[in-house]
């Protein structure tokens, strides 16, 4: 009952706070891809893997009063900061969510910037392709982000480091 909502709340609680909708999307996608049982469906969109279900679920949690969403102006655009409210914490305490290692992985991801997480999630999205093919995909599909080969290499290493955390 509302298990998927509870998992998302757990992700935000262990992260402390998450700033940026794009960052939140990429963190959950990466977590799902490396092992964690999030059930939101993702599709590749203009800015990489994106889940409409996740967007709606976050909106639901805000409407329920379980999540606090603060709109902040940053440069020329707005971004959103998410934290769990007290009633959210109480709800979560009554709903057992068992995802060991989640905190370690999400804390690490939360320390990265959204641009890098976008790259990591894109690399993971094409995990059925060879490293060379993935690199070509990144250069083609993410040309506006101007990722370098070195950054793509870092993304591969980062994925391996995350996977090691859960072993």
């Amino acid at each position, binding site marked *: 009952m509302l298990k998927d909502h509870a998992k998302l709340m757990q992700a935000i609680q262990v992260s402390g706070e998450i700033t940026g909708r794009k960052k939140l999307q990429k963190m959950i996608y990466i977590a799902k891809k490396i092992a964690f049982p999030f059930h939101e469906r993702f599709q590749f969109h203009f*800015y990489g893997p994106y889940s409409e*279900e996740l967007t709606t679920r976050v909106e639901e949690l805000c409407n329920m009063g379980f999540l606090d969403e603060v709109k902040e102006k940053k440069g020329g655009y707005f971004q959103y900061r998410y934290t769990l409210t007290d*009633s959210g914490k109480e709800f979560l305490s009554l709903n057992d969510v068992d995802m060991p290692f989640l905190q370690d992985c999400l804390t690490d991801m939360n320390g990265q910037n959204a641009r890098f997480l976008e790259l990591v999630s894109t690399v993971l999205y094409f995990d059925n392709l060879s490293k060379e093919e993935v690199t070509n995909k990144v250069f083609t599909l993410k040309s506006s982000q101007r990722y370098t080969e070195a950054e793509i290499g870092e993304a591969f290493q980062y994925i391996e480091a995350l996977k090691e955390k859960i072993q």
Partner: protein
Amino acid sequence: MAYAAEKLSEEKVFKDPVHRYIHVRDRAIWDLIGTKEFQRLRRIKQLGTTFLTFHGAEHSRFNHSLGVYEIVRRIIDDVFAGRPEWNDDDRLLTLCAALLHDLGHGPFSHSFEKVFDFDHEDFTNKIILGETEVNKILLKVGPGFPAKVAEIIAKTSEKKLVISLISSQIDADRMDYLQRDAYFTGVSYGHFDMERILRVMRPREDQVVIKKSGMHAVEDYIMSRYQMYWQVYFHPVSRSAEVILTKILHRAKQLFEENYAFKYDPLHFTSIFLGQVTLEDYLKLDESVILYYFQMWQEEVDSILSDLCRRFVNRNLFKFVEFDPANEYKKLAELNSLFKKAGIDPEYYLVVDSSSDLPYDFYRPGEEEERLPIHLLMKNEELRELSRESEIVDAISGKRRTDHKLYYPADYLADNSTKKNIKQQIRALLELE
């Protein structure tokens, strides 16, 4: 003549209630329609369980796929042709992707995807690239052509303009299903001036944009999307049927895992339950197969499976109450416990259904680089996001868009022959008396 350029000796037309006629002139399109994988879409309803609420909603994904193809054909041939931003070499690629975009949908695919963790887009990819009739036709166009079509549908191609024709916030897919679903459900919402929208669409490097002069037609489209969401797609009775369908699949899977001896062996489900479904297995599934099992499982010894199947087949659905998780989650825990005491398994008979469980969405302005919004092309060639120009769209975009309902079997709770006091407590908590 190269297969890609080959035309039929005379144009073929399909009579269509939404677009009047679907016109086919390209040999490759005609051949794709004739493949067994595409014909399978005739046996998969576009709106899943909605026919249990709106009895006219029996239209199939076959109808819809032809409709999306026709809209894209009109955009390319009547609006984009000759414009410098449009590359006519992409014409057949775009038409094939439009026609095949839903090829991987299975029967009642939303429930199947939830229970078995399927992704219909993966199956679309496998059908296009695997050993199928569709793949053979696409290969006749060129050796890399199937992969190009698959990449457009998966939205992983560098041809973003082509992708946006088929999948964006104002695309041929939505324009067809809104009108088609409105027509077949019989509702008066869902109508908008598509001809006008098509005439004001303009190709740009990365996406289709809309001339500012067409803004009011787009407002109508956004309103119709909003109305269809609440009146059709999110209809509580269709959701009840969807809840029961999902629970049938859960129950059958659980019984299989417990080595339950089915009276009617779920042969078509075996590889799905084992998580080893092949493309061949998947293509054998359609709604007639699934409904056959539901029909037969009504006679199963397992009382939960047989009851849920009877409910679905005979449309004896769960009733619902509005549910506010923020203020009622403790009540839900209490109900859960009372259901167990009453001998009614809450895992199958007490279900919260949320808006996020649905595959439909509203228009979002797309702040912070989420999804690409609808852009208006101003007279000075500047692009402006739709909700910044339209007060109507801005008003709708800011509205609360979430909703939760609690589903339960009213007939079980009304039966006072057993556990009368507990059922009374449940009814009181649900505010049924």
